[in-house]
């Protein structure tokens, strides 16, 4: 996964959270400030914001089932060129391929599966570990591959 191990990050945060979305939102706010300081704005900033929100809420609600004894480990790294995010929960993991597409006509009006889809569309790269309890994502700033969706 880009960037190389030598990539110079201007800001890093490693934090262990309880299964509480309030703590997660405080961490996301810190990430937003760091991205802003590194020159991120508009669509780039929004995409990272969305992916990390969905990833953390999935980890807390679906991974840890809001169990107060379980934790979520997060790792954020920011530079002018890229943003790296890793989210690990203590749940049993989930199988990406078992998730039904939220784009199927019969699922369009069902409230499921959109978070994972948005992560995949808004990030340059994203992958789960084998167990399915760790999400690693990378977003390049001004990534030309992430063209604006047509109306």
């Amino acid at each position: 996964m880009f960037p190389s191990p030598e990539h110079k990050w201007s800001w890093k945060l490693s934090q262990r959270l309880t299964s509480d979305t309030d703590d997660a939102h405080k961490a996301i706010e810190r990430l937003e400030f760091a991205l802003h300081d590194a020159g991120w704005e508009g669509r780039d900033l929004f995409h990272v914001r969305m992916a990390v929100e969905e990833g953390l809420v999935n980890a807390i609600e679906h991974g840890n089932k809001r169990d107060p004894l379980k934790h979520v480990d997060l790792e954020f790294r920011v530079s002018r060129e890229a943003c790296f995010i890793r989210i690990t929960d203590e749940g049993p993991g989930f199988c990406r391929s078992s998730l039904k597409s939220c784009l199927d006509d019969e699922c369009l009006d069902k409230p499921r599966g959109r978070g994972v889809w948005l992560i995949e569309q808004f990030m340059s790269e994203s992958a789960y570990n084998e167990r399915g309890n760790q999400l690693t994502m990378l977003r390049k700033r001004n990534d030309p591959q992430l063209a604006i969706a047509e109306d």
Partner: protein
Amino acid sequence: MSTKRRIVVVDDGPVSVVRFVDKKIVDSASIEQLGEELNSLVLVDNRNVLLLNFEGVEFMSSAALNKLISLHSKVKAAEGRLKLCNLRAEIKEVFTITRLDRVFDIRKTELDAIEAFKL
């Protein structure tokens, strides 16, 4: 009329124009409350011609989208009409990417939407 904390409702003729109190719709308790308030517009207040005006909304998560989908089905069941307007470009892109722009009638401005209700 049920009390609303997460939304403000103003009538424009037969159309109930709904605006959102929060700039960022992410907090899970607020999203639950928002969902209840939106549904109560149809189920308690018997309003079924609704325009959701997203002016000022900077961010919303998929959990908030789910509440809009729930409202959509309530309005449909009541044989009402629902439109959305004033979505900032990034939020509009979320609707496009998830194909929810096929489920919701999205208009640029409040005026466009009010005119479209007259058709």
